């Protein structure tokens, strides 16, 4: 039998907040199962299934190698170019898919939102878990790649989860913000792929941050993914590539900023989701 919680509560305009974080914990099981649903449904009715998680970053990497290394001959700070690119592809793919999944997650679950109560925050967070799984699969590919080039990391590799976490919160903050707008204004459906596409070019995925002119560096660091990507590279290359404190701090600052406005905006509009979706 379930533990019957005897609790008395009151539904009142604007008073839904009080139990919110408590509820979030109570509904954790729903969170697991929604994440599990998204994962198990993701590659259903595809022939090669999970291989897509490997194939997508692999093909992108090959194209980047061709364009930036072989044709444009950009510097890669002494790291084999495929590893150099792949170390950046990983966080970028993670961010872009988390961001777009989270942004579209509410609309995709409109029937749930209009028929069942639960803290809505569960939906976008659960949708990001799928990208974490994809990330883990692609990460195995990186290990294969590094073994191939006989390129071994040093102690810096242990900081990798921290940068992943930073990327996670970057995606969560911006994703929550867009998701809550997306419920009311479907324009954002069209904005999301655009942001992802532009983001790929303004983030140091195919090239090194060092080639950005000195006077624009500070402006460049406003993109929180710059710090995340450089951090990944730094952790994987064992400190061979550059990572300065300024970009790291700015990145953390921007992520915190995004998370705050994302959560505040989300919490503010959450109550009306069922009415406008």
């Amino acid at each position: 039998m379930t533990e019957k919680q005897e609790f008395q509560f009151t539904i009142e305009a604007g008073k839904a907040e009080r139990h919110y974080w408590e509820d979030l914990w109570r509904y954790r099981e729903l969170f697991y199962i929604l994440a599990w649903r998204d994962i198990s449904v993701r590659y259903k009715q595809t022939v090669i299934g999970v291989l897509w998680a490997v194939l997508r970053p692999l093909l992108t990497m090959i194209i980047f190698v061709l364009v930036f290394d072989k044709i444009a001959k950009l510097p890669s700070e002494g790291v084999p170019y495929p590893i150099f690119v792949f170390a950046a592809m990983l966080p970028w793919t993670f961010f872009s898919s988390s961001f777009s999944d989270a942004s579209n997650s509410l609309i995709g679950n409109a029937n749930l939102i209009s028929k069942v109560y639960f803290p809505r925050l569960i939906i976008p967070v659960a949708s990001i878990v799928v990208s974490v799984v994809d990330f883990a699969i692609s990460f195995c590919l990186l290990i294969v790649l590094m073994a191939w080039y006989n390129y071994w990391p040093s102690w810096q590799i242990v900081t990798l989860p921290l940068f992943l976490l930073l990327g996670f919160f970057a995606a969560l903050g911006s994703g929550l913000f867009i998701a809550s707008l997306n419920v009311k204004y479907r324009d954002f459906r069209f904005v999301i792929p655009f942001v992802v596409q532009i983001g790929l070019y303004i983030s140091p995925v195919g090239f090194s941050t060092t080639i950005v002119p000195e006077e624009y560096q500070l402006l460049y660091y406003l993109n929180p993914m710059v710090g995340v990507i450089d951090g990944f590279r730094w952790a994987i290359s064992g400190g061979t590539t550059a990572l300065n404190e300024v970009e790291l701090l700015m990145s953390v600052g921007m992520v915190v900023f995004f998370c705050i406005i994302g959560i505040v905006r989300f919490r503010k509009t959450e109550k009306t989701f069922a009415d406008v979706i």
Partner: protein
Amino acid sequence: MSIAIKVENLSKKYIIQHEKKTADYETFSESLIQGSKNLANKIIQPFTHTEIAPHTQEEFWALKDINFEINQGDKVGIIGRNGAGKSTLLKVLSRITEPTSGKVHINGRIASLLEVGTGFHPELTGRENIFLNGAILGMSRKEIKLKFDEIVAFAEVEKFLDTPVKRYSSGMYVRLAFAVAAHLESDILVIDEVLAVGDIQFQKKCLGKMGEVSKEGRTVLFVSHNLSAIKQLCNKGVLLRQGVLGSYGNTEDVIKLYLQDSIKNKDNIFLKKEIDSFPEDPDFRMTDVVLSQCGKKVEKIVQNGAPLEVTIKYQVKNEIIGLRIFVDMLDSQETILFRSFHDENHAEIVSMMPGYYESKLTIPSGILAPFQHFICVKSGVFGIRYTTPEVGVRIPIEVEHTSNYNRAYPGDKIVGCLALSLNWNIEGLRQ
């Protein structure tokens, strides 16, 4: 007895946007334009505080000042016409949407079931969907595991547990969905019109399950248009009228009030208007329906001691083969007592030429029981389409007992849906 739910001055307002009838969401640009207009207005007239509301918006109170208390263990049926606020009330109670003002106090764990199969994923198997749907309804994994076999047995889908539900027949799908919901454990259960699914046998099973649930002493709130289900299951009733609490109390009384509402809403002028507002059919037009007894037009009150004539006037614009005009007699529970077709005595399908016609049905005396009934008049072309709206025109009538049926015992309650004056022959055999 302790109180399970206490509703205090509950109101819920929606803003309706008139121009956007096709889209239920706004685009950002519209908001931007509206925003800049408002801003411009504020700059021009910075000291007037009047909100310049756009003409396209209208306030709509789905619920207005609702007050009631529900005791622990009560089974409450919520009735009202479409748009009376029933679903909104359930949505507020189950915390899906927030009230605009007022309070609801709830004591106990509440589970709501506003739709059968919420969150079912077509790609997942039956087994997986049981866990998914259970979690969505608020059950824990442990709880679902414990009840798993029971759920599967109830849904009768043992063989297809590992098939994706998208391959299920719609009946199986609905059965599985209801089975999960039926095994929900909670102190308070909120149910929207969910019994209107599945075949009749399954509906009976659902009703039985609901009856079981209510015997366990749980509080149940139940919205339905099925008045007999409400009568069966509920001991209290809530009547909503356009967002306002019409009545709260004994189920029988509330249902009676609800039915009276539907009588009040129709007189003959209204009836004619309704018929005239039917969407146009290329070949057919109903012009009037008249009830009469003994050559006199009747409204509402009908006597079962005299034949009742239903006269349907209509125009055939182009030749129609297989035109069927028919009359349904419904009892107050919306059960069809009988249906009669205007050509039911013809041996062959009739073709009707253009012109004006009048079809008259005579319902003999000594048939109708002295209750509330509805007469529904509809028409269609056999096997092709309805030539009036599918619901037809609905006339509520109140039957007065003037027939000979059970005449000697006027105080005796009439049992059955009809009060047929049949022929009995009594013969004395032996002294």
